């Protein structure tokens, strides 16, 4: 029988598999009932052992235990697809992506060996790190960014209750997958804004030229 931390880790990996299947189902045009069926079958397939390990165990071996932020985002997305709910508040999502991208850039570059200081160490219960996160959570609450507040609160609670093997708070808040998603989303946003800005500038220029020639 797996330990509770293993069960949590396997469940997280299973959520990724289900989310991937549902996304694929949407891409081929399945309706909600079909997506629900895919999600159910996917969850069972991910958790039933094939040989020594379930499929979720194979994935877990590669990506490790996924952060609570990733799981919250995946579950919110799944719920939206399966229940046709409204998309997440755009401001809240943007703020979360910014935090994840900045946090990930700082954490991964320094923790992997750039420089002498390892910020990963803060995650072992440093009270000042917790205080900083609390300040971010309260600021997000004040500015009505619920996804940020919820992600931080759930991550800190899961860390305090030791729901994963890791005793490091960073592992509950951030993982390379969600960092890659946030970073690439921001890059795409930036590229889109640039293209739109360029389009508007060209349009203005053309109008000005048309005006001067007439």
């Amino acid at each position, binding site marked *: 029988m797996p330990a509770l931390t293993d069960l949590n880790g396997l469940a997280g990996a299973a959520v990724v598999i289900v989310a991937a299947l549902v996304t694929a189902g949407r891409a081929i045009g399945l309706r909600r009932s079909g997506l629900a069926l895919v999600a159910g079958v996917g969850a069972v397939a991910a958790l039933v052992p094939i040989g020594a390990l379930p499929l979720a165990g*194979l994935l877990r071996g590669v990506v490790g235990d996924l952060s609570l932020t990733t799981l919250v985002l995946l579950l919110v997305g799944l719920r939206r697809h399966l229940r046709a709910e409204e*998309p997440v508040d755009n401001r809240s999502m943007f703020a979360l992506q910014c935090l994840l991208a900045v946090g990930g850039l700082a954490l991964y570059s320094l923790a*992997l060996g750039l420089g*002498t200081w390892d910020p*990963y160490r803060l995650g072992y219960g440093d009270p000042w790190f917790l205080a900083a996160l609390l300040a971010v959570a309260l600021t997000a609450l004040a500015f009505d960014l619920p996804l940020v507040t919820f992600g*931080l609160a759930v991550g800190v609670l899961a860390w305090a209750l030791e729901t994963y093997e890791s005793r490091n708070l960073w592992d509950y808040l951030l993982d390379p997958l969600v960092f890659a998603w946030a970073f690439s989303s921001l890059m795409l946003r930036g590229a889109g804004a640039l293209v739109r800005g360029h389009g508007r500038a060209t349009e203005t220029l053309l109008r000005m030229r048309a005006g001067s020639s007439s």
Partner: protein
Amino acid sequence: MSPAPGTVGPESTGRGEWAPRRRRRALLAFLTVLAFGVGFSKSFRRSPPPLFRVSTTGHSEGLSPRRGPGHPSEVEPLLRTGFVSRRHDVAAHAASLVELADGRLRAFWFSGSAEGALDVVILSAVYDPNRGEWSDARTVAEPEGTRRGLWRHVTKLGNPTAIRTADGTLWLFYVTVTVGGWGGSTVTCIRSNDDGETWGPPRRLIGTPFFNLNTLVRAHPFEYTDGTLGLPAYRSLLLGLSETLRVDRRGAVIDKQRISTLGRGSQPAVLPTGPSTALALMRPSGQEPPRRVTLSRTHDAGRRWTRPTRTPLVNPDAAIEGLALPDGRLLAVLNDVEVERDALSLIVSDDTGATWRRVHRLEDQVAERERSFDDDRWAQTVEALARATDDTVTDAMRYVTSSRRFMCWESRCHFDFSYPSLVRTRGGDFHLLYSWNRAYIKHVRFNQAWLDERVEDTRHARAD
């Protein structure tokens, strides 16, 4: 500002939605207070930084001294050698040694068709010092069992390292790889309460935030006064770096500290010299030749380490092992050559690592390397070395064929005596294991009298 189509922002919320929105914010506020309340409570419950538990016998703790007047190790100088592993045609590497409660020693090493192969397992054998014999090796960890125990995919195993703690628990840490080469390594630990007869389920150590990849172990762990362990660890990617992981009694990493930055030394051997002082000797990974061992010190029980400095100790980028002796001297074993691993030496420092001197060359095939290669001569040398190592060897040619399997490339064959593991027992004897041509584990046993004799001889030699 109006919200983008399809989004739900504060401005898009109608007057009738204010009540649910306020409820949601109140719930979020409650969740935040709860989560951070529990979080701060956990944070403030952290134990204060501990001191080193200074060992009087090397790496083995929790054992009462057995030394007494008349003990044979204090009378006549003793130096004995033999082979731990007797299996032929398989790779054997990266041994680690601990003393057990009854005075026997238990060795761990990895073995398989080749280093990094999927069939590599962690083997263990027990040495009875009274009979001078090693037991047959048996498997204590293999990929399939590790996979099942960890509930995650594992492809292959690597370096083991072990410690017996003050509470009598025997800990074995070993490298596990899920994807790729050693860069994809993580560390797994298992524990035994009966000195290695049976083992508990494996547990994964989480050492880095990036998929938990690229953490390896080699040198012996050490103990803190609060019962937690310090595990010297390193990274192999890029230029390599060193750090210590602090592991609690349940096998979870609860703190870490960096010893060196990229290119300033990896694979640390940490030698606690006092409750708050220690030094770390590191192999010169990432250095351009001429490579030198790097050294870092701590004066606050590992909370901060000094910037690593290059020592005069020559090393070809191979593992180093060391011990702080009760009399304050430091004893280390390393390949003290610029290239290859064909010489292995025992070195001593009387001034806490400021200067070192070689007291004994355990292996030396430098001259053979510098001559033009002759396959027959190489085979004869291996055969002679095998017989000299262990007088019970009757099939020395098997040692030649096994060595040939791992030591021959680029149209010549080499020698490899590397990855030492050294302990000092309660009786005062020293036991050293190291890889012998990557195919066998060699055991060298010597006592304090022999060491003192060697130290005196070399001191006089220096004076002369």
